[in-house]
């Protein structure tokens, strides 16, 4: 355990810093900020590009020498995106699928990750290895078989078919298991001695401690619902169940079948906006950390 590396010593006189230390500290600070800001700019660039593209005319978008600011700002792209896309209905569908599948998926993932992280049972390692192995086959090959399965189950054009097949993600189970493993086992053993049930311990201790990771999973899962395209189009292409991406990809083609990217980008920006607000809200919880969750390890 890493604790061994930390030998508790008496508090030194921390109050006085030499001027050399101050300079080093300042330099480190400067370096950290410079690094973060540089990386932030790099990460930000595609987002910026999305926004300026959404404000260009199609002709300007097609120019060989890309412009960094639209010559003529086309707010009308947003109006067009809103009117052509029938976004309202699709938005509600996507919200529904996103929220339901995220909640169910979280429950399944938490239970599964807990079993792998804390419970002992025969064949645990083998089963976990098998789970990991399923990640190693390219998912494209699953489509045909799964399509056949859901057809035979009679799930075509239902919300079920959009939610159920992708509820379990080994990716997330593995992630959460790792996070659970970070939590000292002593807590669990202490709870056992106290007679706390597994489920109660999971809910009262593990889940709050792993909250940042659970929120990461929520974000990824929601984004998944927002971005999935091929499967929804395949299994639910009636209007009552269509998802936002299907509307986005299909609505904005010009007459020759070319995609009208500026309008499409505008539509993407519109539908991403609420999601972004949710993230802003969740960010607080990711950064809240253990110290504020009220549990001392």
């Amino acid at each position: 355990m890493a604790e061994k590396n930390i030998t508790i010593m008496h508090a030194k006189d921390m109050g006085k810093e030499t001027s050399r230390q101050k300079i080093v500290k300042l330099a480190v600070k400067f370096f950290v900020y410079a690094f973060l800001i540089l990386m932030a700019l790099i990460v930000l660039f595609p987002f910026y590009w999305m926004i300026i593209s959404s404000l260009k005319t199609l002709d300007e978008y097609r120019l060989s020498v890309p412009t960094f600011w639209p010559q003529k700002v086309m707010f009308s792209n947003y109006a067009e995106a809103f009117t052509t896309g029938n976004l309202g209905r699709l938005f509600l569908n996507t919200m529904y699928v996103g929220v339901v599948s995220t909640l169910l998926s979280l429950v399944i993932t938490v239970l599964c990750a807990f079993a792998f992280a804390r419970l002992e049972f025969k064949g645990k390692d083998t089963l976990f290895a098998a789970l990991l192995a399923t990640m190693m086959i390219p998912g494209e090959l699953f489509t045909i078989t799964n399509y056949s399965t859901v057809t035979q189950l009679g799930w075509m054009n239902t919300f079920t078919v959009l939610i159920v097949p992708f509820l379990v993600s080994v990716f997330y189970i593995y992630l959460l298991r790792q996070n659970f493993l970070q939590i000292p086992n002593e807590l669990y053993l202490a709870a056992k001695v106290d007679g706390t049930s597994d489920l109660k311990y999971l809910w009262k201790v593990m889940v709050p401690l792993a909250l940042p990771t659970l929120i990461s999973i929520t974000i990824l899962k929601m984004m998944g619902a927002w971005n999935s395209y091929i499967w929804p189009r395949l299994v639910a292409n009636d209007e009552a169940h269509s998802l936002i991406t299907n509307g986005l990809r299909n609505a904005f083609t010009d007459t020759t079948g070319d995609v009208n990217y500026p309008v499409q980008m505008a539509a993407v920006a519109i539908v991403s906006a609420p999601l972004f607000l949710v993230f802003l809200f969740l960010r607080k919880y990711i950064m809240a950390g253990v110290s504020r969750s009220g549990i001392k390890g």
Partner: protein
Amino acid sequence: MVDSKHQWKAWIYLSPAIVLLLVFTVWPIINTVRMSFLENYSGLEAVGGATFEFGIGNFQKVIEYKRFINCLKNTILLCVLTVPVSTILALLIAVALNSIKGLQKVLQTIFFLPYVTNSIAIGMVFAAMFNIVGSFYGTQNEIVVTAGIINNVLEFLGFERVNWINAGSSYEANIIVMTVYIVWNALPFKILVLLGGLQSINKQYYDAAKVDGTPRRRVFTKITVPLLSPMLAYVVITGFIGGFKEYSSIVGIFGENMGPVDDVGRLNTMVGFIYDALETNKQGRASAAALILFGIILVVTMINMQVSKKRVHY
């Protein structure tokens, strides 16, 4: 030893996941295996009444493909290059984000933005960054309409411009672009995971270190990294698994050509090969290639697991 009551309990916890996995993951895998051993299997031809013999011809056909080694080489090279780079960068960013006070909210928000950025936009940016519009590169007749943002920067700094992805570009230049792109794409997710992991580290460790006056670097190597090691292991292992399935990022830069226009397929990968086979409904061949890829990933993951077992502190 474990008593049977606990066994029973564990399986209850696992059952929802296992049932769904059996139906939607294991069954397709079994079907993939079946298709891979039926000579020249095609689902559409099967519907049309064709029958297929049992055999290993699909595997032979995959291995005989003269660009098979090339696909394999690209896949492995990109994996080996991108996973360490993106992991280290993400770790540094996550730790830095966690340590600062001013601007913290703004910067954290910015690092979330990639999640709401459309993938098409990301592809467009790269086109603008590396693509040279023009012809006859490196000849007397050279015509350049625009050299791309990166080359503009290079020239501004006094360097020669590089033909990154266009006709006549070198394999090395292509690989550099792909590495940058893949790392860039992978960063947000890894930062998110590591940031979540960092938040789960008990603050007491840091408080203790502070009291001791332990230097920053020592805190990083002796506290942060060991305590974050489960998450780091996760990021590396899933990074390798994902890296071996690299495909869409290459399409993002080079389009369906999977290489510069004068050397189509130069950067093709294993999954790219699988897509090609599916295009003409050669599912038998695609399945065989997928199983070969599976074998490779399995071996690499086993090695990864062995290494992480020694290094990861739970």
